[in-house]
């Protein structure tokens, strides 16, 4: 019973991320943020969600927020290559 519940939760998290990406690609930034934040409630330790939130803020040119999100993603997964590239670009390296 417990296993089954966990599986449903995982799927929901992935669905939320996919929805967030869909909104992001279509320039619906506010909606994307809502989906990614819902996904974070289910899985606060998921670096991919922070990376995508970083992308939202970078696209909006809110670079301080983007930096915070990329840093959080890297604190979870220090080897996240694409995040490092985005952070270096923002910091100006």
């Amino acid at each position, binding site marked *: 019973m417990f296993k089954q519940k966990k599986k449903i939760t995982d799927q929901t998290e992935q669905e939320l991320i996919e929805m967030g990406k869909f909104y992001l690609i279509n320039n619906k930034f506010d909606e994307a943020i809502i989906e990614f934040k819902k996904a974070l409630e289910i899985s606060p330790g998921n670096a991919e969600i922070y990376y995508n939130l970083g992308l939202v803020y970078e696209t909006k*040119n809110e670079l301080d927020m983007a930096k915070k999100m990329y840093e959080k993603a890297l604190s979870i997964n220090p080897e996240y290559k694409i995040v490092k590239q985005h952070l270096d670009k923002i910091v100006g390296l």
Partner: protein
Amino acid sequence: MKKKQFIVIGLGTFGFNVAKNLSEKNVEVLAIDKNEARVNEIAPFVTKAVTADATNEKVLKTLGVSDFDIGIIAIGESLESSILATLLLKELGTKTIIVKSINALHSKIAIKVGADRVVYPELESAKKLVESLISPNILEEIELSPEYNIAEIIAPKKFVNKTLGDLNIRANYKLNVIALKHKIVYLTDTDETDIKTETNISPDANTEIMEGDILVVIGKYEDIKKLQEVV
């Protein structure tokens, strides 16, 4: 066509990076420093790296500095060595000489002894940093003349979803929009999201501004500042 030839004298952080970046542009680079360890460090990147004293005329003659198109003197520690090296490159016939200045007085002397251009990275970086702190919406600014600049400005929120025609920036802000940069989020081959920037040069009146777009404008410094204050 013959590749351009550069000589970089002094391989501190600045000189090292100039030499390395030049090499990446597929030009010939001769790098010189008195310090062997620094020479060994740059050697894998440049055409030729030599441990030598660039204030010694004989050494410079042997290296054939007269054949070089551009000489970059990036000696950071000694004013005297930098000036001597500038003078010698000029006398030996290097076509263009660029000097990294140590201080304001050095800039003046360098020009007097033959430098064609003086760069002062610390001062330039300081100015850029101050501008970025005072005007965070201005991402990049190039001075065309003391009065006119080209600047990259984050589109103010009130411009979003309006066309350049609606905004009539030329009449209302006395600025010309010469390009519009727009970030696009896309999916990579591995299904990861990423961003690329599309630049629309000479955008027409029907071009709509989206959230996060960057306007590249040309105009007077004070008009750019006024646009930067629009939210």
